[in-house]
């Protein structure tokens, strides 16, 4: 299949996914990439699992910053510096 010759699964999986995901892939290459996906269900599963990994990781960002952290920082610095901020 021609699209597989132009962009093999190996290249897609090992080299191109980051550029595809962060939007930095040039448009002509993106079209070839998406054409490849339309003919290659296993690569679609690979891409979806890669995207699911990203979504899962975005849930990790600490939502709760310790209460009064800014005050604790100011106190910590004041106690250790001769010139007190």
């Amino acid at each position: 299949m021609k699209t597989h010759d132009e962009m093999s699964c190996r290249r897609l999986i090992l080299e191109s996914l980051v550029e595809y995901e962060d939007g930095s892939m040039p448009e002509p290459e993106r079209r070839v990439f998406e054409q490849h996906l339309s003919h290659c269900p296993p690569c679609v599963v690979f891409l979806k699992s890669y995207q699911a990994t990203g979504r899962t990781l975005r849930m990790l960002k600490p939502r709760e910053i310790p209460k009064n952290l800014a005050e604790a920082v100011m106190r910590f610095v004041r106690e250790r510096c001769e010139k007190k901020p």
Partner: protein
Amino acid sequence: MTAEQDASDVDLVRRIKRGDDEAFREMVDRYHARVYSLSYGVLHNREDAEEATQDSFLTLYRKIGTFDESKKFFSWFYRVALNAAYSRARRRRPLRTVSLDDYVPNLGGDGHALSPEFAAFVEGAEDGAVARDLAEKAEGFIAELPETYRDVIWMVDVEEMSPADVAETLEISIAALKSRLHRARLYVRQRLAAIAAPAQTGAGARRAAP
């Protein structure tokens, strides 16, 4: 990070250098949450991350005179914060880290190293309860990564910093950053997929419960 933010940071830096304590307070207000979150990515512990945040601002206060204003402030300060976090991490027993060479997809020719658990993972990650379970596990998997990979995946995928900002902070090329990011993602993906099937079964059981 926008140009406006950079300019505003430099204005605060100049005021701090002149001894303006209110400017230091503004800097703490502006950056303490981001520094805490970055520190948490290294230490995975609230108390340690809080102390590392305090260390970072102490270093900022003491070393602000060495900051070159032609550079971006946030990248300088994030390096300070990473150093503070790693300094604290080294005082603890080092975590065992993995070799990522064991987790590069093993593709033969045009073949696909796919197994049923990847499809189960994709499906499970769309379920809110399962996704939260997976996210908790993912934090542990990130902690297993070697430092150079851990920083990159935390800053890009968790903190959602731009690759360009992360590359500048870590003083590496964009190409090196993307290579590390990809390998780290493949590792976490594979580890998540390996646990997805049991997690999904658990969610199904919860949904079926009266």
